[in-house]
């Protein structure tokens, strides 16, 4: 009996320490990111076998100003671009996916199976490998180097459509029938009855969509030109310089990551709900 308790305690201790170690390891890079963004360039690196300075410095504002003063790339503009693009995208994709999901969940119509299978098929396909023809398409449509070039191709998110359809299936048909008898048109059914009851699913999808657009790199790199860069592209352009100013880069990365972390912390409940809905239902 004593033996069992001891073993149990050992497991607990082991498990707990494992957890703590891993968590700390995960957090170290972020800590360093914050610290490094407050240090001048040379202080970021160790010299002669000493660790670089580990406590935050005071050079943050200075680095940030240097970053702003870069001649070719306006990083702060790219922050705005990222926010605008991700925001518009999220709203648009949310709207289209919820409308589509509503149709699939609550209506019967010809071609329903065909269309559904079409969406299923694209789920298997890694769609961001479609950049080459998309690039031609976008140029032809005259959308190069616009926000829409980045937003439109991804607004029809198959994942989003699936998620919305699944969530909407849980609305009882009798609710919609009651609304029809009350005199609602089909659009009012969608807008006044269905959407308000879907708030948490919409939030979950919104977080997932926003995050995916915020982090998108390959496509904006291909399509966007100066003045319209999003954050990842801007950072990449900065690093392609000869003299890499790491302190500025740290500031740039910190600005890219930390606020997003804070927002994410607040909203992660929704995010988790979203990814679980997809995964656990498999």
């Amino acid at each position, binding site marked *: 009996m004593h033996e069992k308790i001891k073993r149990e305690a050992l497991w607990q201790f082991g498990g*707990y320490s494992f*957890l703590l170690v*891993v*968590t700390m390891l*995960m957090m170290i890079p*972020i800590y*360093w*990111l914050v610290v490094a963004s407050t240090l001048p360039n040379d202080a*970021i*690196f160790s*010299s002669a*076998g000493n660790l670089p300075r580990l406590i935050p410095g005071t050079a943050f504002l200075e680095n940030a100003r240097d970053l702003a003063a870069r001649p070719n790339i306006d990083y702060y503009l790219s922050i705005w671009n990222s926010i605008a693009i991700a925001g518009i995208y999220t709203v648009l994709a949310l709207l289209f996916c919820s*409308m*589509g999901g509503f*149709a699939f969940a609550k*209506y019967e119509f010809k071609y329903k199976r065909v269309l559904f299978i079409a969406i299923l098929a*694209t789920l298997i*396909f*890694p*769609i*961001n*490998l*479609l*950049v080459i*023809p*998309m*690039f*031609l*398409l976008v*140029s*032809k449509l005259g959308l190069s180097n616009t926000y829409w070039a980045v937003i439109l191709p*991804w*607004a*029809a998110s198959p994942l989003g*459509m699936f998620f919305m359809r699944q969530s909407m299936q849980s609305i009882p048909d009798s609710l919609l029938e009651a609304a029809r008898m009350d005199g609602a*048109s*089909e659009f*009012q059914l969608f807008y006044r009855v269905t959407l308000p009851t879907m708030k948490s699913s919409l939030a979950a999808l919104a977080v997932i969509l926003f*995050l995916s657009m915020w*982090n998108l*790199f390959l496509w904006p790199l*291909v399509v966007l030109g100066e003045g319209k860069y999003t*954050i990842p592209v801007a950072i*990449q352009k900065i*690093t392609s310089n000869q003299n890499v100013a790491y302190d500025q880069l740290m500031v740039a*990365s910190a600005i*890219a*990551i930390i606020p*997003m*972390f804070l*927002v*994410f*912390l607040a909203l*992660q409940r929704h*995010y988790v709900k979203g*990814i*679980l809905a997809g*995964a*656990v239902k*498999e």
Partner: protein
Amino acid sequence: MNSQTVTSLVDTLRFKREQLKESLPPFPGTPYVFLSPFFVLFGVFLVFPMFYTIYLSFFTFQGVALDPLFVFEIGGASVAIPKMANLQFVGLENYQRLLGDNIFYQSLLNTVIIFLVQVPLMVSLAMGIALVLNAGFTRFKDVFRSILLLPVAANSVAYTIMFTVIAVEGGLLDGVFIMLGLQPIPWMTDGFWARNLIAGMSVWRWTGYNMIIILAGMQTISPSLYEAAEINGATRLQKFRYVTLPQLKPIMLFVFVTTTIGVFKKFGEPVIVIQSGAPINKTRTIVYYIYEVAFQNLQLGYGSALTVALVLIILTLSLIQFKVT
């Protein structure tokens, strides 16, 4: 405005809206209306490119087309269907080139190696953490979950920079190594280590995500299964092997398939790492190569062929994973 006028204003608006609704004819095609925005974009930007990629792979890109594909007259106006691009048919030439392309194989190899380093590490970590969190004796479960999930929100380029600074010569890692009396590892200058760095970065990024999924799967396992095993005399390890793992099969399949797809799509990390000086031949992933071919060398046809090959590889791997579980 007093409330009386506000209400009557609201009322008038409402009446107008309802009148409008009544004047509209009944819509038999309602579902189609709901679906059309989605499917228009879907068809144009997803379906068409899928087929066009395959189509393009049999051609060589020769430049942007300015002349239209064909023009037809409707009424008095003429409608021009634009040609996508100037192409020259080359049949299977692109694919032949692909099969003999050393760089293609090399980039494929790099990607696979990253896969082999990243996946076991990440899955074991994710599984381990999930086990600990699921065991129920940890308080602050939610706190740990939140912290561990954070890396998912990190911008792919920015977080690579974050790691680059740590890993670069003279960075934090070097400092730690020297302090421990070890020889510092040339993460950024040696191809082998640069690859491992990329794998390691991804482990940092995705462990939390997969952990959440595995944890959720674990929580659906009925406790009575564990109790039955306990009564049968199973140790902790045995319970894991005979109860947990089999029950998690569908979840693990999902994790493996999505991770595989993710690894084979890696682009941001190699870009930054290579730009920071890592040897390209050991760190170039396959998507990076496609990017080089298509957008730096403007060989869109060959790039399409490479894309098709990549899709086939991913599909095959996924199918294998399906069969195995």
